């Protein structure tokens, strides 16, 4: 049998086994949770009907709009602030931790470790931890967004720097350029657009996460939603959701527009 036949047969077998494996994992997990697929499916129509009869913004809920918008603005502002400040710190760490322009031996390793620790603790977990020290306040939410965002962005910037600027950095180093000149003349111009693009993405993600964080920290739009939801004002809660969705879509459209302009 020639090599090609063997290669493609093996590949088919691998794919089949992987599919079976996924199904098996699902069955085991479902069994453990006693998750009944047929019951879940048959319950779905009822759930949807309930949702549509209760979760509809009513006329009465419209008078809550000023409160909702004010809190939404707070949330968006906190998200933007957290994204920008974490980006500044992330850039500094990424530069000193990168392969092409980083500092000496242990620094890159330390930077990578810090970044992955902060990135791998979910924002919600940060919020819960920070609640102990900073209580329910806007600052807690800001800090939670800042910490995960900073870990995530450091990681992204590290990759961007090594990917796009290694060649030019080598060339400038060979001309006798100093460290500051390398950074200013090669690394910054080459990475600026990618950095901006990541920051825009971070703002979008943070607005989404901030809603959830707000429920925990009792601030911002998350708190408003939680309040209406718990007091059975489903119409007002629905209005909150509509507002959040609109803001998220608007943000995404804006950042796509900015991206297209800078690229």
């Amino acid at each position, binding site marked *: 049998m020639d090599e090609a036949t063997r290669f493609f047969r093996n590949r088919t077998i691998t794919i089949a086994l992987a599919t079976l494996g996924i199904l098996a994992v699902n069955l085991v997990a479902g069994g453990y949770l006693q998750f009944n697929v047929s019951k879940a499916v048959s319950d779905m129509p009822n759930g949807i009907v309930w949702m549509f009869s209760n979760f509809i913004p009513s006329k009465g809920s419209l008078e809550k709009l000023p409160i909702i918008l004010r809190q939404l603005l707070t949330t968006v502002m906190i998200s933007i602030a957290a994204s920008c400040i974490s980006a500044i710190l992330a850039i500094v760490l990424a530069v000193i931790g990168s392969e092409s322009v980083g500092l000496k031996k242990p620094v890159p390793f330390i930077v990578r470790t810090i970044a992955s620790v902060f990135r791998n603790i979910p924002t919600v977990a940060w919020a819960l931890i920070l609640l102990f020290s900073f209580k329910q306040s806007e600052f807690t939410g800001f800090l939670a967004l800042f910490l995960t965002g900073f870990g995530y962005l450091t990681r992204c910037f590290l990759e961007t720097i090594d990917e796009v600027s290694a*060649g*030019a950095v*080598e*060339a*400038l*180093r*060979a*001309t*006798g*350029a*100093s460290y*500051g*000149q390398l*950074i*200013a*003349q*090669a690394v910054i*111009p*080459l990475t*600026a*657009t990618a950095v901006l693009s990541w920051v825009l993405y971070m703002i979008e993600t943070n607005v989404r996460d901030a809603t959830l964080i707000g429920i925990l920290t009792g601030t911002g739009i998350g708190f408003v939603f939680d309040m209406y939801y718990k007091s059975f004002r489903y119409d007002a809660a629905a209005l909150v959701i509509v507002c959040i969705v609109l803001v998220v879509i608007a943000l995404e459209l804006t950042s796509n527009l900015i991206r297209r302009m800078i690229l």
Partner: protein
Amino acid sequence: MTQNPTLNQAQDSAKGNLLEIRGLTKYYIKERAALNDVSFDLHYGELVSVIGPSGSGKSTLLRCINRMIEPTAGSIVFSGQEVIKLRRKELRMLRRRISMVFQHYNLVHRLTAVENVLHGRLGYKSTIAGMIGLYSESEKMKALDILAQLDIIDYSYVRIDRLSGGQMQRVGIARALVQDPLLILCDEPIASLDPKSARVIMGYLRAIADTYGIACLVNLHQVDFAIEYSDRIIALRDGEKVFDGNPNMLSTEMIEEVYGIAPDASQITPQIPLEPFDG
């Protein structure tokens, strides 16, 4: 190309050796030498090609000369100065007189051609002036003058990512020239170019060596280009120098020995670039 007075001092120096390399050795890993006891001289204004199969140590050799890679042992005397002993500051001074040209051009794609050319002046400037890109009037004139000589003056204010491969390499050479170098190290300057652009680039290197007396040490994959354009050819195999002499002394048997028992035909005949032509 016309005579350029500011680039002329290389020629004035006495005929002697610009570069004397003795016993140059580099170990990346303990088990195997990437460069083993390589010695040779380079005269002012000489164009020498370094050939050898992939992994034979061509890039390592080039980068040891300006210490982009730290040699393990040996001596490199450049213009009377021992390179190995230099400290950081002195090394930066040295690098101003040794420029580099790369296979992938290594330009800052987001900046214009003239800005990239001016990067060749960074070593001569204070850190702050270099960081904010503050160049003197004469430096700008010089950069534009060189761009004109390399026939890409029309693209001076065009961003690098709009240029073809051949044009990018000319910007790379312009950046090398604006440094006022005594030596240009070229690491496979034509490996990513189509044969026509490759001829143009090799022609410029030849003219630079002849007109300005700037020595060029050029790593090449294509032996026929090496034979056509160089004053001398050095061949490496497994990190050792196996040939050093006139192009006409490089026999077919020698080429076979350098590249192994069964020479890869693509190494000798003009080859179609393996990488997509980015032009």
